[in-house]
């Protein structure tokens, strides 16, 4: 009994210590997505700052000491602002002298413009990094490439469409959009670029991120036939959506008894350029 009391006291003390550790503010440098439990969206503070929450997608951050630096494409996270197209890996900035890299394969955007330097070749508004990578990049690359690109897999529709070939000086890997995933269910077919959903008890899931673009499709009730467990159709309005599934844009088709919703993804940006990221200022 006495031993039990000792164990209980030790556990209580440990919990108290852990509780205190969680209450510590988390440090960020630069803008970043806001954690979903805090309402989501995008935090636009460039200067070093603190929040009471840790980042949702730690893989999209590079940690420098105890500070998180968001290195990803902000498009899927409610970011509204200037966008500049990049293709493949490139340095982002340096914080306290430590270089920060973007490890996103293929086309993506950042809120900042590539610096005007011989290390970047810009073709058709797309920046390709053709400069050297240092040892730090090579050390981080094997792990970071895997985790960062896994995070962006559900967001194919947010990627810009790049129609230029990489310059010959560029030595990165050409990105190929993931193949279509087909799932089938009676009566309901949802089609989007790269995604087809079919099948009884269909669940199309993806990690929880910011809400994807939504399309409300109004279907006359008599023309909708629904069968199969796990498929919900509320008529006369039918809402089709979910993380990882992009439905929308021109060319939306609605047919019954099956419902087909089609659209195209891709995001172009022709925003004005606003200079390179300014991480690490104001210290």
């Amino acid at each position, binding site marked *: 009994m006495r031993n039990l009391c000792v164990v209980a006291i030790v556990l209580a003390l440990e919990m108290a210590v852990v509780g205190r550790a969680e209450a510590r503010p988390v440090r960020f440098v630069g803008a970043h997505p806001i954690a979903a439990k805090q309402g989501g969206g995008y935090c*636009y*503070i460039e*200067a070093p700052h*603190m929040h*009471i929450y840790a980042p949702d997608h730690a893989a999209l951050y590079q940690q420098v000491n105890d500070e998180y630096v968001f290195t990803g494409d902000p498009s899927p996270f409610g970011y509204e602002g200037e966008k500049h197209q990049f293709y493949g890996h490139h340095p982002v900035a340096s914080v306290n002298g430590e270089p920060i890299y973007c490890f996103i394969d293929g086309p993506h955007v950042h809120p900042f413009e590539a610096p005007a330097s011989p290390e970047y070749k810009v073709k058709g508004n797309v920046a390709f990094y053709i400069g050297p990578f240092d040892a730090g990049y090579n050390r981080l690359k094997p792990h970071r490439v895997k985790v960062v690109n896994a995070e962006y897999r559900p967001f194919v529709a947010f990627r810009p469409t790049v129609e230029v070939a990489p310059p010959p000086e560029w030595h990165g890997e050409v990105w190929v959009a993931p193949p279509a995933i087909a799932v089938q269910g009676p009566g309901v077919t949802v089609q989007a670029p790269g995604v087809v959903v079919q099948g009884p008890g269909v669940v199309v899931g993806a990690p929880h991120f910011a809400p994807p673009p939504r399309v409300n499709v109004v279907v006359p009730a008599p023309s909708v036939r629904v069968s199969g467990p796990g498929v919900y159709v509320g008529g006369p309005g039918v809402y089709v959506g979910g993380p990882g599934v992009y439905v929308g844009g021109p060319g939306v088709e609605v047919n019954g008894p099956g419902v087909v919703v089609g659209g195209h993804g891709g995001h172009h940006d022709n925003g004005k350029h606003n200079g390179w990221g300014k991480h690490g200022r104001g210290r």
Partner: protein
Amino acid sequence: MRLAAIVFAATAAIACHKDAGPEGLRLRQLHDGLGSAGFKLDDFKKADASRFSAQNCEAGALGGLDAVVCEYGSTEAVALGKKAGEGWVAEATTGVALSNGHTLLLLADRHKADPNGQTIHKITKAYTALK
């Protein structure tokens, strides 16, 4: 090489002197600078400077955020005050503790008045640009 070393040493000496000298940003300039960026500190009241190891501190509301600005005698003292400032920010949803010259700026969003940090971004951008 030797010349380069001398030039470097001289530059460093000038830079260090300037850092510790009286030319750094002061509270008065901070008032003027933030005021011209649209963030008036006119309603700020004297605050307990000892809490932030400062010579002078003022506290008030800035764009719906809790704010404290302090002035220090040296840049070393600012660093000390910044630590204390981070403690003041601690429990806020979002907060900043930034220094510039002989001044310290603390902002704390305790009531989610600035959910996307747009106001904090504007204030800190104006503050860090002051010289």
